């Protein structure tokens, strides 16, 4: 626990306090959001309620940002540690790398809450306040719990690949972009082509996204609700087990072969 607190304190200071990191980070986030949100407003027909459009966009960004946290705050953190030559020290300390993940989590959550507040404000200015509400708190809790498990597994797969290759490998690039898009992370599955729906249901990512959308937008999942919860939970746990095994395998390989050199890209 002391190690977790130390990590939290260090990251809180580095990311939010030192050198106006909080302000720069926040501005950076707003601008990136603006880059992708602004062109989306060009699709909006004048006769559709803009707050519904905003609600969909807000949920898509919530899901996408969660993947970003898993990718850049957790998995990419290992690459950062390699760049600074710190990973060896953490391994030599005998502590688990996951202490780092737990310590970083509150900072990431703070960021996400602030970013989502900003996104809400931006959408309100650009189109209209997003039409979101809590339609089903139980499903909402289930959706977010399953989502967290999937994200952790996602970070382990990407982190494992990073320490194995020393750069953002194929898995890193493609999982982090294509999967959230192709598995219904951004758009309700019922609005996607049938082939994409089928592929999405073969991945653990689609289920929590469908549950979250149902709970805050009221959009029905393509599978019956409780089947979505059941399959989503089982799939998330199976994914977590596979990810843990993969990560351990890569860590053992790292200990056997030594850390890789880090590329700029």
């Amino acid at each position: 626990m002391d190690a977790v607190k130390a990590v939290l304190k260090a990251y809180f200071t580095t990311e939010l306090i030192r050198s106006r990191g909080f302000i720069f980070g926040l501005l950076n986030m707003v601008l990136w959001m603006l880059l992708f949100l602004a062109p989306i407003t060009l699709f909006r027909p004048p006769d559709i309620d803009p707050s519904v459009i905003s609600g969909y966009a807000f949920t898509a960004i919530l899901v996408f940002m969660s993947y970003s946290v898993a990718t850049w705050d957790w998995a990419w953190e290992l690459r950062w540690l390699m760049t600074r030559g710190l990973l060896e020290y953490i391994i030599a300390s005998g502590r688990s790398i996951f202490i780092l993940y737990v310590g970083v989590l509150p900072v990431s959550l703070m960021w996400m809450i602030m970013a989502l507040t900003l996104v809400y404000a931006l959408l309100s200015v650009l189109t209209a306040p997003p039409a979101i509400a809590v339609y089903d708190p139980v499903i909402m809790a289930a959706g977010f719990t399953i989502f967290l498990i999937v994200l952790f597994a996602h970070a382990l797969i990407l982190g494992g690949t990073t320490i194995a290759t020393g750069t953002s490998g194929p898995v890193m690039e493609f999982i982090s972009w294509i999967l959230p898009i192709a598995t219904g992370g951004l758009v309700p599955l019922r609005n996607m082509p049938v082939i994409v729906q089928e592929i999405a249901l073969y991945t653990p990512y689609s289920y929590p996204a469908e549950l979250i959308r149902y709970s805050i937008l009221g959009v029905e999942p393509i599978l019956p609700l409780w089947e979505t919860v059941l399959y989503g939970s089982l799939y998330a746990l199976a994914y977590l087990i596979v990810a843990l095994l993969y990560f351990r395998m890569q860590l053992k390989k790292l200990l056997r072969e030594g850390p890789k050199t880090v590329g700029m890209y």
Partner: protein
Amino acid sequence: MGFRDIIAAEFRFTYADVFRRKITLVTFIAYPYILTILVLLIGYSLGSPTVFRERVGIDPMVFFILAGFTIMAIIGVGDDLLWRPLFDEWMGTLPYVMASPVPRIQHYIAIPLPRLILVLISGSTSIVPVLTYYYGLQGLVEGLLVMLLTGIAALFFTTIAILIMGIVYSLGGENWRIINIIRPLFLILVGAYYPRYLMPLTGQVISWLIPSSHVVEVIHRMISGLYSSPVDLLVLLGIATALFILYAPPGVKSIMYWEKTKMREGVRV
């Protein structure tokens, strides 16, 4: 060491890395498509492509594949220049760069070229097939023209990027964080994802100061046919060239100032 030797060295350095980590190469090809799918999926699920076509004058698929490609080229040049000093500092190689007899300006001009050429070639797998599919033979010609114009847009970004790089790193400390603001701001104002002619007036005025934004507008107007004669497009290219040249002298000075600052303060490793 002449400029050609520096360029050759930079090419060898970059391509060795790219071909060793082949995924970097794959991502050059995949990124325009990934970014297009991202925006289109959200856009189509929230609205209508017809509405987009009426507002912008270009089919959304064509527009966003162009946007992804041009952004990849421009951000590539920007990233190579804006992050390289920091990367060198973190990796502990900056003292060697500083100690080398290579002229700094020539070095920084050479840095983005290898990756830019790779990105431009990757256009043959994104914009050329998409434009050919949509517009036939004319699309093929326009695709090749877009590749050329994107190369110009990215090259025209070098002097302004060098100027900013010199200023930001001369400030020292952790002021490099400013780059995190400047980078997405440029990407918005360059107008690849949101046409400059649809921006509010303030946005248009600031965008006008970025040389690459004029070239991006040429690309948009050429594809949508929003020009009365080729002279309109040549005027925009002329403005871009003038701005590119205008930023060169202060850019050189800012690099020299940064170098002096580093020599005075020493490099932290």
